[in-house]
């Protein structure tokens, strides 16, 4: 039985329509009209214990809404969510003890007092035994470098420091699952690396299951064994990162350096993209054209000095998926 089970979950919001002009304002007052907005549309997935799953999608795709439903602060309009054998929105208090949630844009810490004081309160809220609290505090200070600012009031922290403190705060009670909604906002490169190391560590050593949303593909590549891609409230892809390349990015780029500058020429099964000095770039579909035969053909015509075949960056592939999804793909079967 998976740890997190989401079954055809839909979330609709009602938004009041604001009509323009004087008559519009009047009818807004007396006859408000509403439109239904579907933020999450028939989403299903399952996550096993111990996974690190990246949840990505463009702005407004439905990521945060999903995270909020999973953490029990929003009720799905239809469908079923079961996490740790509980229904998050129904058994809110019991459930809240077993999960950690971080919204990168918000803080759960007390604004006016030093970080450590908030930690002490959280210890009492979650009834964390003193020994466990000390052990966690030590570990987090170590791995996240909290030591430098744990005695500083939260309002004086930089955004990145605050996020790190919030992540530590969410883990003080040893939750089984950690939900992170854009945890790397404002975090510098060094701290990001540190945060990644930290998340890997708690995932491996403590078997904490992690679901995170981010716009940073680098992060997904380094951290996640699996990604879910969502847009317009629908899951477009569910699988590992490498498969995205094979599935959606069939184009490869062949860069050739010739021994001398030569005029442009055309090739069967490849398209000349760019030409500069002695170098030329050809794009080809890797399923239709084989690299050895392509090279052989070219080598017959002109002497080749050097060549490379590049796969598209994962970021470009994701961009393709976002831009393209309406037409070509439709929902994936995962």
């Amino acid at each position, binding site marked *: 039985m998976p740890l997190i089970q989401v079954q055809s979950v839909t979330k609709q919001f009602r938004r009041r329509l604001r009509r323009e002009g004087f008559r519009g304002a009047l009818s807004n007052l007396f006859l408000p009209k509403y439109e239904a907005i579907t933020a999450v549309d028939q989403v299903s997935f399952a996550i096993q214990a111990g996974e690190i799953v990246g949840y990505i999608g463009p702005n407004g795709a439905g990521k945060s*809404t999903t995270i909020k439903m999973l953490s029990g602060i929003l009720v799905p309009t239809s469908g079923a969510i079961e996490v740790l054998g509980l229904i998050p929105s129904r058994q809110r*208090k019991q459930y809240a003890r077993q999960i950690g949630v971080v*919204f990168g844009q918000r803080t759960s810490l007390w*604004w006016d007092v030093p970080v450590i004081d908030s930690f002490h309160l959280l210890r*009492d*809220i979650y009834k964390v035994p003193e020994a466990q609290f000390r052990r966690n505090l030590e570990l987090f200070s170590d791995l996240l470098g909290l030591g430098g600012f744990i005695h500083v009031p939260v309002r004086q922290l930089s955004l990145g420091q605050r996020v790190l403190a919030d992540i530590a705060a969410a883990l003080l009670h040893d939750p089984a699952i950690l939900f992170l909604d854009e945890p790397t906002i404002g975090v510098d490169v060094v701290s990001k690396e540190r945060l990644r190391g930290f998340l890997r560590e708690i995932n491996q050593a403590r078997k904490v299951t992690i679901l995170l949303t981010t716009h940073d593909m680098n992060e997904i590549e380094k951290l996640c064994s699996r990604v879910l891609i969502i847009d317009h409230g629908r899951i477009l892809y569910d699988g590992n990162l490498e498969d995205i390349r094979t599935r959606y990015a069939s184009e490869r780029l062949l860069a050739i350096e010739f021994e001398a500058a030569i005029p442009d020429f055309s090739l069967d099964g490849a398209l000349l993209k760019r030409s500069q000095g002695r170098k030329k770039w050809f794009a080809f579909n890797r399923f239709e054209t084989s690299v050895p035969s392509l090279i052989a053909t070219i080598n017959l015509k002109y002497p080749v000095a050097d060549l490379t075949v590049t796969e598209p960056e994962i970021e470009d592939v994701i961009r393709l998926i976002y831009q393209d999804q309406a037409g070509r793909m439709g929902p994936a079967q995962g």
Partner: protein
Amino acid sequence: MKLFLSFTRLEFLAASMYRGEFWLRIANNLVVMYGAYWLWNTLYDRQPQIFTISREQMLAYGMLAMLMDTFFSASNHVRYYIMGQVRTGAIQMDLLRPLDLVFHLLARNSGQMIFSVLTQGLPGFLAGALFLGLRPPSNLQDGLLFLLSLLLAYLVAFTLNFLVGMVAVYVTEAQRISWAYYALLRFFSGQAVPLWFFPPFLAQIAYLLPFRCIIAVPLSIYIGQLSFQEALSALGLQALWAAALLAACQLTWYRAHTRLTVQGG
């Protein structure tokens, strides 16, 4: 209980971070207490016969009503907090906690209240006693009943603030309702003018509303206006209001919570 104290401690710490505000409020207390002193003294000089109580009693009522208004304003934090959290959507952070919101906010606010009593109420009281002839209650019994009454008064103030704050869940612009609440409170609590000066129909309204539990009831006990029996039934009334309002808070929150989790705040 441990958790309650932990909250109290943290809010106490947070409140003590602002030193400038501390001195400003002390100065403010002295000014408004002096204003009340001067006003009631002058009125008493002109027409002593309209007062059914002694000059000392009237002065104590007038000055303490001013002082209570300042240190009781700590209970307003509840209202502002809820309204702010709902407006910014940060109320969702509170929903993530394994806590009941009413308990959560009561624990939070108690810390602010204790801080306010210690840093505003006590210094103001001492200054009044030293410079403005503010007398302590005439006997120990009244003093103790007053303290009990003050505690119940706080519970009533807390619950009313909670309920007014909850309006923000339903109305986008709750600020005006918040002001209206404050105006009603000042008038019907007997803070600006003691209730026994009200014309009969207004007195009748004030009698039916919970606001008098916040200022008029504890101060009547303080100045010894009520007999022991009357004081006990006044405390009973406060307790009833506090219990009824706490129940209303739970009910309102239950419904507001459903709305927030369905509508997304």
